[in-house]
């Protein structure tokens, strides 16, 4: 989609561009989200009321924040399967350490962030220096954390922490016009999303995307790969910590809180058109993927699908949605490959327009240029190999 909009800057037809954006992989998730929301509203008009809708946003906030964290890891070329268990661990930590004592809220919150950062640091360092695939490292971290939680709690719920701590996930600014209540969760989500968008556009954020696309070139460009990679894991663990704090408030303490969040987040990120393996994707689309997933669950609730086969319906719809995203990615790559020589230079010179989809456009062009000349000038054929592999994967 970036391709289509960016390569034809002279075309002022915004509407056509928007249409193309919506059916393109990065935009598909927004289309899906709109369709789902409209369907929910048709089934249940009260959902469209601002007060109800803001509650929906509140509920999605933790998943969306986890998806944003997962985005950075995935776009950097790795996976973080430990996010759900970090959420669980933080929820249990909050429940057990804070208890009913308001004075402990601040120190325990600080501890939770330190703990979150530490988990991410360990994940990142092992992936970077011991060269263990992140899939395995974070899977191990997931098991270690869940085991720790099981050891600590025996697998059953413990008491909820003080109500004032839970306020951030449960409460909000009340007595507002139109929406009645602005939940703190929504505010936190807006801040996290804003930070993520800003961060993704900073040089460091772009380096993450570049790292996922081609680690070798990033190294030659002078970046410290290990630090870039490790920081993505720290970001994901910290976002899981934020989600955990919101969930303690929203739901309460239970060892099942956070279960499956890593996969929900990965699915959301993929649904948002982010390429597994890294190098492409837009953080806002990843967050939108989380919204689309939750909207899907809500839709099935409203449609009255019986609980016994609801999961099956969910699974099929997710497969179809991801398959659609994959098909459009493939189509785009084919088209792109043909246009490459002509399209490159204008794409690079195009300033990021008001089209939100163009925000990360600098990255894909960088990613997309398997410029044969520059590659052959390099001794190592690795960069082009990787890119070619990705292309083949998409095309075959």
């Amino acid at each position, binding site marked *: 989609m970036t391709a289509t909009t960016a390569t034809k800057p002279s075309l002022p037809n915004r509407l056509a561009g928007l249409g193309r954006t919506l059916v393109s992989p990065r935009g598909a998730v927004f289309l899906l989200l709109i369709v789902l929301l409209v369907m929910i509203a048709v089934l249940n008009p009260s959902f469209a009321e601002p007060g109800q809708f803001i509650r929906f946003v509140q509920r999605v906030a933790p998943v969306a924040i986890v998806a944003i964290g997962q985005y950075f890891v995935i776009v950097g070329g790795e996976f973080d399967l430990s996010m759900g268990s970090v959420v669980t661990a933080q929820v249990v930590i909050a429940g057990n350490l804070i208890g009913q004592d308001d004075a402990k809220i601040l120190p325990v919150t600080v501890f939770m962030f330190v703990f979150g950062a530490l988990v991410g640091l360990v994940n990142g360092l092992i992936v970077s220096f011991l060269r263990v695939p992140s899939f395995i490292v974070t899977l191990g971290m997931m098991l270690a954390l869940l085991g720790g939680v099981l050891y600590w709690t025996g697998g059953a719920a413990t008491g909820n922490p003080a109500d004032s701590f839970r306020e951030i996930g449960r409460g909000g600014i009340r007595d507002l016009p139109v929406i009645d209540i602005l939940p703190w969760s929504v505010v936190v989500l807006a801040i996290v999303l804003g930070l993520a968008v800003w961060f993704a556009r900073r040089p460091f954020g772009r380096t993450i995307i570049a790292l996922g696309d081609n680690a070798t070139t990033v190294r030659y460009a002078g970046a410290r790969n290990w630090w870039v990679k490790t920081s993505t894991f720290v970001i994901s663990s910290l976002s899981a910590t934020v989600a955990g704090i919101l969930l303690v408030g929203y*739901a309460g303490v239970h060892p099942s809180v956070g279960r*499956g969040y890593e996969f*929900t987040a990965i699915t959301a990120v993929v649904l948002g058109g982010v390429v597994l393996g890294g190098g492409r994707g837009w953080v806002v689309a990843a967050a939108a993927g989380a919204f689309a997933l939750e909207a899907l669950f809500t839709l099935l609730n409203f449609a009255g699908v019986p609980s016994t086969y609801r999961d099956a319906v969910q699974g099929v719809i997710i497969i179809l949605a991801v398959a659609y995203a994959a098909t459009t990615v493939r189509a785009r790559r084919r088209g792109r490959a043909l246009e490459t020589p002509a399209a490159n230079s204008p794409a690079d010179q195009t300033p990021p327009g008001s089209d939100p989809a163009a925000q990360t456009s600098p990255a894909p062009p960088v990613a997309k240029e398997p410029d044969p000349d520059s590659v052959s000038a390099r001794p190592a054929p690795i960069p082009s190999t990787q890119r070619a592999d990705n292309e083949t994967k998409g095309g075959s």
Partner: protein
Amino acid sequence: MRRRITVVSAMVGALALFTLAGCTTDPNVAAPSDDAAATEESVEWFDQELFDKQDAERDVVPEGPEGQPWLQHINAEMIDTSEFAADGAKKACFANASISNPWRQTGWITMNQQLAVLQDAGVISEMETRDAQDSDDTQIADIDYFITEGDCDIFLISPNSTAAMTPAVERACDTGKPVVVFDRGVQTDCPVTFIHPIGGFAWGIDTAEFLIGELEEGDKVVALRILPGVDVLEQRWAAAEKLFDEAGIEAVDYFTGADPTEIKKIISDELAKGDVAGVWMDAGDGAVAAIEAFEDAGVDYPVMTGEDEMSFLRKWKDTGLTGLAPVYSNFQWRTPLLAAQKIFAGEEIPSEWVLPQSPITAEEVDEYLAANDGMPDGHYAKFGGEDLPGYPQVWQDRVIP
């Protein structure tokens, strides 16, 4: 590289769907055979004969020592155990399904205090326990280990699932040593005794009758269920669903995995759809989250059935809602060890030991709150350990043994 990415993508995709598909990785889910049954309509779990039996047992005055419900029994057929009579302290081997929910944890603490009493009395020398952590496979291995290497004098088994555990229990019976099964059942009558409260149908009848009495025809009840495929839970819903159906109450059921996030979502969605007059739960775990969802939405509290878990009783009292706390008698965790004592003494015991099971009503809730003052939220009011050493400190500290 290409292969790696493809394989990893495939793995992630598969796992993601697996997990999203309602946490089928949950180890609590019963054996595959049960799963298959669970996907059918829940009518399959309905058993008119058992329903009638349990319905009748609710009104029977139990026999046995006054004030010690863990030794009482309903409609018991007594059997002779003199063949097992023996002197001296014996070794008990306990194959436990899990301690992964607050109900089992509370019972497990009580059981350990009871064990201490029997050890002091010289009845039991030691109890070797294996925790199967909700896994059928693990529990089968645990039982087989006990049979071959445990040097056990008696087997105490709390089965993880009904069908899968039957052969292993039969193998334990084949050793000639006494076998005591409690909580969930098995499909064999080879154990010396099977100890359980009246059962799931009685729970379903108590709760459904309460809700039907409080609600009008056409009112909506949201049923929050933990997981499919476990007989004691399925029977609760099977009975309630049938009664709701007959009374014209609109009931929709959801599986929550006891996850409070899930419960809140479900209730919020249901409230967005329309009024919810009642909430029915097949276990009290997560009841507080359900009530909070009503608070957050700013609507009236529902008529609600939870469980005798302290968190629910406290929230019930705080909010003043109309409620009932059905009970799946937690004191049954004491009974297997006491049964062992009777077996080694050669006394008569019931072949099927049906313990009393009666809900806590609004009139009784103050009494149980006072009696369990200072207990943690996960504690169960009818835990039946008041006469054991360590009361109340051990239950208040709630350190899992």
